[in-house]
């Protein structure tokens, strides 16, 4: 650890505002990116399964009904 205490760590030798601004935006972007990927993945899967549910035997799709 390069810092003596937490206060020094937060202050970053007077450059705390800049350092923490850069890191917080980077981390926010990382979280947004990864959760966005996961959300898209889930949405696509739900969408596909909804389509599939209409076609499984037993639950005949209205369009396929005689």
């Amino acid at each position, binding site marked *: *650890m*390069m*810092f003596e205490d937490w206060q020094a*760590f937060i202050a*970053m*030798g*007077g*450059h*705390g505002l*800049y*350092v923490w*601004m*850069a*890191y917080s*935006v*980077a*981390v926010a*972007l*990382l979280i947004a*990116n*990864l959760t966005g*990927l996961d959300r*898209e*993945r889930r949405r*696509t*899967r739900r*969408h*596909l*399964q909804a*389509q*599939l*549910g209409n*076609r*499984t035997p037993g639950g005949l799709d209205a369009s396929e009904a005689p």
Partner: protein
Amino acid sequence: MTLKQFWHRLGSPKWFFHMSGPWQGAFAVLAVLLLLTGMTWGLAFAPPDYQQGNSFRIIYVHVPAAVLAQSVYLTLGVAGVLLLVWRMKMAQLVLENLVGFGAWMTALALFTGAVWGKPTWGTWWVFDGRTTSTLVLLFLYFGLYALRQAIPSREAAGRACALLAVVGVINIPVIKYSVEWWTTLHQGATFKLTEAPAMPASMWAPLLVNVLGAYCLFAANLIAKLRTAILRQEPGAAWVRDWAAGEVRP
């Protein structure tokens, strides 16, 4: 498997989809682990720069973002060639789905650069060689996005964007050279990023970790976006239905 076979299979969405399944999670987890390690290391354990003090720690998020910004554009250019010459289906998906990620990384590089510039250069923005070429890169991404939005036909939009990406990649070296020429002419070397050539390992090791983490994030994005796009593109294909059925009833 020979290289030629691999090449052909890479062009097949179905093969890619089945292959990439285990990889997407692995890359995402690896990216998070590496980036968290690198950031903590860089924030708390790397020594401060003898000139810039602690503001130097911004390098650990700035450089990986800048590296990705360029790598993503280069990838788009390669995908452009693959689409124009071999009409590879996967290349079109790459072109359609990677522009946003690249633009965000470019924006992050510019933002962290500005935040670093304030304590170091005394100003948020300087038309320095590298900042200018990064800004131009952002415009190139915007151009790709706008062109895709403007063309109604999906196939035509893909090929138009492919052509634009290739032209952009050819131009990037000239752009970089020209702006460096221009800024050295106007401002001398005062505003060059002062990176000592012999940066000690305790300083560059966390950077290396973060750059590797950034590439893992790139891979995770590429795979996840391609998988989603493949499923959306062929929702009726038999193999997609089989796969979805397997997901429903394990």
